[in-house]
Structures are given as structure tokens and as C-alpha cells.
């Protein structure tokens, strides 16, 4: 039986190796390359996507685990307009090289859901974002942009 899932709202099927990580299905089969390879071991967060709204490391999530589930990638995070985090990321010039940033944004988007309209502390941000590595060192700007996006959600 092929695996059936939705990616960015679109139905997809996959009949290959059910052990293949979701990351490679997105990148090699759907050519959604916004989701990045960084470590292959769930250590860096570059591959973060949403599965049924929760942030997950696609490099360590086999296709068998997403059968019947709904996946959102950076390409599908916002419809027409940008997500408030993407806006904040641009306003604060968060990205340097940009490679880890789709993963950072996807992680942050899941994190802020329960804070929007309120406030989020730096400790909460650090706790929510510590799994996402940025070698350019944009962490202080990531914190600022998340705080801003949370506040502007009110």
C-alpha cells in the first residue's frame, strides 16, 4: 500500500522505501528544497517541518510515520502574504547565509502558536529553539524577531 499524505495541502503518494526520511521525499521527489539537510540526525533543526502543526525533524522522520498525516514546509507556511515570522525575519535582517533559516522559522512558527497575542520570554525562546543551530550566529536577532512576531500577533 502506498503511503498517502498531504504536503502543503496537496495530496501526495509514495510507494517507495517506507524507511526513507521525509526530508528526502520533500527534496528529491517533490523538489521542495526549502527544507534543508544539515546533520541527518535530528541535531541541527535545518530540516524542520510541521506534521499536523507540530515541528518535527524531517531528516529523522521515516515516511511510514507520516502516512495519513499533513505536512507543511517553508514553502507552504503562508498562503499569499508572508507569515508574521517571515516579515519579522526580513524587518530585522535575521538571515546571514540563510541556510538554516527555513528550519528556524518553521520551529519558531510552531513555538509561538501558544504565545501569540501575549509575550514570550528569552528563556522560553531559548528552550523552544535550542535544537536549531545557526553557524552564522544570528541567535540574538532570532530572539528579537520572535518577540516581535509574538507581540504583533496581538
Amino acid at each position: 500500500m502506498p503511503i498517502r499524505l498531504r504536503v502543503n495541502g496537496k495530496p501526495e503518494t509514495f510507494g517507495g522505501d517506507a524507511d526513507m526520511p521525509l526530508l528526502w521525499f520533500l527534496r528529491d521527489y517533490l523538489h521542495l528544497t526549502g527544507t534543508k539537510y544539515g546533520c541527518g540526525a535530528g541535531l541541527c533543526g535545518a530540516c524542520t517541518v510541521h506534521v499536523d502543526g507540530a515541528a518535527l525533524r524531517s531528516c529523522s522522520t521515516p515516511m511510514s510515520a507520516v502516512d495519513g498525516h499533513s505536512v507543511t514546509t517553508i514553502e507552504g507556511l503562508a498562503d499569499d502574504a508572508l507569515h508574521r515570522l517571515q516579515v519579522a525575519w526580513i524587518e530585522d535582517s535575521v538571515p546571514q547565509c540563510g541556510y538554516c533559516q527555513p528550519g528556524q522559522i518553521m520551529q519558531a512558527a510552531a513555538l509561538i502558536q501558544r504565545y501569540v497575542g501575549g509575550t514570550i520570554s528569552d528563556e522560553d525562546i531559548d528552550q523552544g529553539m535550542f535544537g536549531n543551530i545557526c553557524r552564522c550566529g544570528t541567535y540574538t536577532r532570532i530572539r528579537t524577531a520572535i518577540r516581535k512576531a509574538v507581540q504583533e500577533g496581538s
Partner: protein
Amino acid sequence: MKKEQLPCSSRRQFIQTMAQGATFVVAVKLLPIAGLATADDLPGGRWRPDILLSLDGTGLVTFTCHRSEMGQKVRVSLAQVIADELEADWDRIRVEQADGDARYGDQNTDGSQSVRMNFARLRQVGATVRLALETAAATIWKVPVSECLANMHVVTHTPSGKTLAYGQLAEVAASLPLPAPDQAKLKSRDQWKYIGRTVTDGDLLPIVSGRTVFGFDVNLPGMRTALIARPPVLFGSVKSFDKSAAMKVGGVEHVLELPALAPPAAFKALGGVAVVATDAWSAIKGRRALDVQWAPSVNDDYDSGEFAASLLKMTDVPGNSVRNEGDVEAALSSGNRIVSATYYVPHLAQAPMEPPCATARFEDGKVEMWVCTQSPQAVQESVSGALGIKKEAVTVHVTALGGAFGRKAKADFAVEAAILAREVGHPVKVMWTREDDIQHGYYHTVSAQRFDAALDAGGRAIAWRQRAAFPSILTTFNPAAKVPIPPELRGFIDNPFDIPNMRMEVDGAGAHVRIGWLRSVTALFFGFGAQSFACELAVAAGRDPKDYLLELIGPPRNVDLGKEVAFDNYGDPIDTHPLDTARLRNVIEIAARRAQWGRKMTPGTGLGIAACRSFSSYVATVVEVEVRKDGSLLLPAVYMAIDAGTVVNPDHVRAQCEGGAVYGLSCALAQVTARNGAVVQSNFHDYPVARINDAPKVIDVHIVESDAPPAGVGEAPVPPFAPALCNAIHAATGRRIRVLPIDRKALA
């Protein structure tokens, strides 16, 4: 309509124009020297003129950036420089990425050089094209060019108020001889619109939308994906391999042996066995199924711990003197108070978020490549060498780089892709996994340093002897090389301290892994050693570390190292980029003031300061640390002051300081070690780079206003970080850290 433009008559000609329809295109040979190329200098006597700047009939200006983009925002800053002199509307500038091409001059995006080496030239190009547009308007209106003024994409005839937009001028401008470069007048600083300001960055939207194409994201019709099992030890080779299990993996099409690597390593492929598959996952599984036996290597005995001990031992005895002032030995043996210490910094991996990756297509004896490279011309050269084809037969498209930090200045991974593309007859993407990246890199060299200083009765330093021993980067290109070369002595030989007796000695050693550049290179460990030891002297003298550091630096002056000292000033003349202690003192005082240096600290917390001149920039860093009971480190704030001369984009400088602090922190937390010749670490679990919870809560950056020529910004913020942090840890705990990485458990 295509019409070739006659070359302009000036012997100093550097620009040619060509009409391409209504497109006005300009090229300049970007030599790494201040002089402008003459027509005679051009390779083969002629060149394609559409390589730098074009203006079309709609007014769209296309700037082709010849330097690689890896997060330093070079595509924006170089465009700012040219747009300013061009009097262009920023919103009508498009940036394209240049292929590798010797006609650009130096494209190797390293050494924090892009703005430093291109600022003057790009201003001149912009100003020349501005004058060309004014001249075109004057021709159309039949008025003197002095009455025509370019401003924001429009030329105005000032007496009448008539205007013509740039797009309307393109065709006429292209039909006229281009003004000689010395005719164009550069704008004065107070006329700058973009230089010195923050501008919109068109690369941000694709990044946050996941649309930027990095090396990993290249996709060609019929492309295969390859992973390579490389020899675990440098110069190891394949003894035998069994490909049967790998070939059974669905999607795996080829398993083939690459040529063994013979010294020197240079930018050649490491060898090993490649698994070529239809897609990444098949290649990953195929490589796992592969059974390879490795033949012994000359480096099988390499143990980085033993090697560290041997390097430290080398510093017990005199090395090659590279700087000698006064009589250090006498001062060290005349009954003065002596302070001595040894320092050690391990191998480090650049570990960019995007590991190395290259895609190649081989057709009719030619290779077309898409590479996340810092140095497309190095790719051309290395691939041409490996395949025995001409450099011109290697086309290199430069993708966005997902970080680089020196790793992607090396072309080895591109060579692998080119070899495989030729072998299998399909386009091939070679992907490096994180394990490949950590275990088969070009590592930051290991270094040992020994410091001996003499203090007089008042605690003033009267002698400073510094010995350093480390394998040179040159060993990667010449295994017999034993002595580090002048560019590796920066931050050491140019120590600006005002001490009457100074002696610097250096020794080399053979390397057993590939040694390569890592962000800030040797300035990293020289800065760590010297700025930590300076604090040790302050403590020994019972003085405030900041005041003592200023005293060590001495009065404001340009340090004259003398002719016998082989100081390589980052490629710049010492007159334009002097060793200016006034600027060094200034950044120290600013950072200290912003940190409220001297404030009362609670137990377990401390402030530390360090300051380095590197890449001709002056950076002072104050770190505030809290050492918690479990030894973990909290960084409530970091205060940085930078004097980088003229700044093109202050937000870029701020970002590089923030990122440089975090990179410096990572350099103090992680290490690469080797056992039995093979690298022990493999991924982020055992190469623990800084995460958001490690990062400073606040990074305060002050940029000094300066009219001095631009200096390097990408690397200079890194060297002062680790010593400032370790000086802060000392202030907080009394513990002196002389060996990196910081052993946080030992601080508990």
C-alpha cells in the same frame, strides 16, 4: 542591433562598452591591485564586456557580483558602492552572480577582502558610467556635459530642467566612447546616498521563503546523487571493497573507486569509493551497505593528544626568531619577576550549516558545474587538473553558499563531482553528509604557544617572549613545508605592545590531516594566547586588566615594525592600513565604557576584555559571564567596538560582529581530535557548536565612525572573543583557561 564599440583611446583604458540592443554594458578587469588594467593586459587580448554592469532600455541596472555570497552580504555591499557613484535608484538594481572567470581578477572570497579590495575600483566604475550617461544626455540635448547632472536614475539639464531617465539614455550611451576613468569625478563622502547606510536586501525574501538555491538545492534533468566512502585516514587508500550489497540497494546504479590521493592533498579529491544512485536516500543506504577495506596510511599513528604534547615541548626551546627587539633573554634572566604560561588551541572544523556539495555535468569534453564555492576559479583549476582538460572547458556557476568559513575555498568536493560525472555519463551531485564534513575536512591547525614575560618592580612589562609551534597551512600543498609562512604570523609578529624587549619565535611541524583556513585563521589562536596572557600579566601586577592592556599597548602611534620583520599586512600597504594604536586604544575604551567596566560584579560573574587588530580592523570585546555551579556558562551580555575604517553597510558590520562573537564562542567550546589517524568527532553531538541557549543574551555593537579606507569585517570580530570570555571566567572564578576547548565540567 549589435555593434561593437571602438575601444577608447586612453592607454589607461579599463572599460569597454558594447551596444547590445538597447543595453549598455560595461566591464572592468578587477585586478587585485589598485592599478587599472590596460587593453594589453587582457587575456588573449580581448574579452566579453558583459561581465560587470549593464543598463537596459527600461532603466534596469544589472550588477554582476564576482564574489561569493555566504552570509556576509557581499552582493548587497558591492552593489551599494557601485550604485552610489552611479547615482542609481537602489530599487532598480538587480544583482546577478558571476561565474568563475579569470577576467574578474581575484574571486576567492576569503581573507575579508571583498569590500577592502573592490571599494575604490567599483566607485570608479560607477562614477565613469554616471559620466557616460551625463555625456549621452549632453549629446542628445546638444549642450555641454557640465550642464547635465545625474541624480537617482535621471539626468537633468540644469539650466532648462529637462530630464532623461537612465533607460532612455542607454542606447546613446552605448554608442559613445566611454569616458576615461580619470575624467569621472568621485562623489565626496557627504554626497554618498548608499555607502554608510543600511539598504533593503533583496536576498532576504527568497531566503525566508525557502526559494534560495544553495549548492544542495541544484537539480538537473537526469541528475544522479553520489555519496563517497572516503579513507578515514589522510592518504589512506582502498585495499579492497565488496560492492555487491550496495548494488542490491534499490536506486543504486554505480559503485566505483576514485583515484587514490597522493601528496600533496591540495584541492584534490580524497579518493575512496563512490556510490552513485538515483536519489539521496538510495545513495545513503548504498554507502551504508558498502564494505571497504582500507590500506594503511603514513598517518595511521596520528594521535592529536600526543601531537599536542610534542608541540608544547617544541616551545620549551628557541624557535626561528621572526622579530627581536632589545634583549629579551637578558631581561628574562636579570632577577625581574617572570610570568610564564603555555596555551593550546585544538583542531577546529568550519562546519558550515550546508556541508560541501557540488553538481557536475560532463559533455563533449567540457564540464559545467554548480558549486557552493568561495573560489570558482580554484574549482576551474582543480577540475581541469584532475580531468586533464583546459580551464576554459570548466564552467563554474556559483550558487548561494550555506555558510563557508573557509571550508568552501577548497575545491576538493567539486573535483569529486566532475570525476563522477565523467565516469557515469549523467550529471552527478556529490553530497557531503555532516559526518563527511566533520571527519574529512581541512582543519584549523593545532597550535601551542609559550609566553614568558618579565615585570619590573612596578609591575610594568619589560620583556615579552612568545613562542608558537603549529603545522602550516602550506603543509596541505607541500608536505615537506615545516615553517609557517608570513600570512600565518599575523596577529603575532605585529603585536602592538609597547615593551622594550620583545622576541617572537615560531616553529612548524608536519601535518597529518589537511590543514586549511578557518574564519580568522591564525589570528584566532594568536589572539587567544596573547590577549589571555596580557590579562595574566595584569593579574600578576595586581592591576585592572583593561588599564593594564592600554598600558601594554602604550601611547597612540603607528607601530613601525622595521624592515627586518616580515609582516604581511593582509595585502595592503602599511601606509594605507597602519598599525595604529590610537584606534586600538579607542575601541578598548568604547567597549569598556559601554560595558560599564569596573562595575561591581556578584560572585560567580565577571567581565573580561580583549582587543585585536586583524584584517586591518580593530575590535575590542568585553564579555560578561556568569559561571553557574554546574560549570555551565551564561553570557548576559557582550559589548563589541569595531573600527573597520569606512563602512559600506553598518548593519552588515553589526551582523558580522554578532555572528563573529557566536562563532568565536563555538571555537572555544568544540574541538576536533584524531586517534589512529582518524578524526574522532562526527556530528553536532560531539562537535558542540554554540546553540541559542549558549549565545549571549545581548550583543552590543558600536561601530567607530572613520574616514580610513575600508578594512576587513567578516573575520576580525572572531579573535577577541575567546580571550575575552576566558578573561571573564578568570574574573568570575579565579580559574585561568589556557587550553581550548573550555572544559565546562571542570569549572563546576
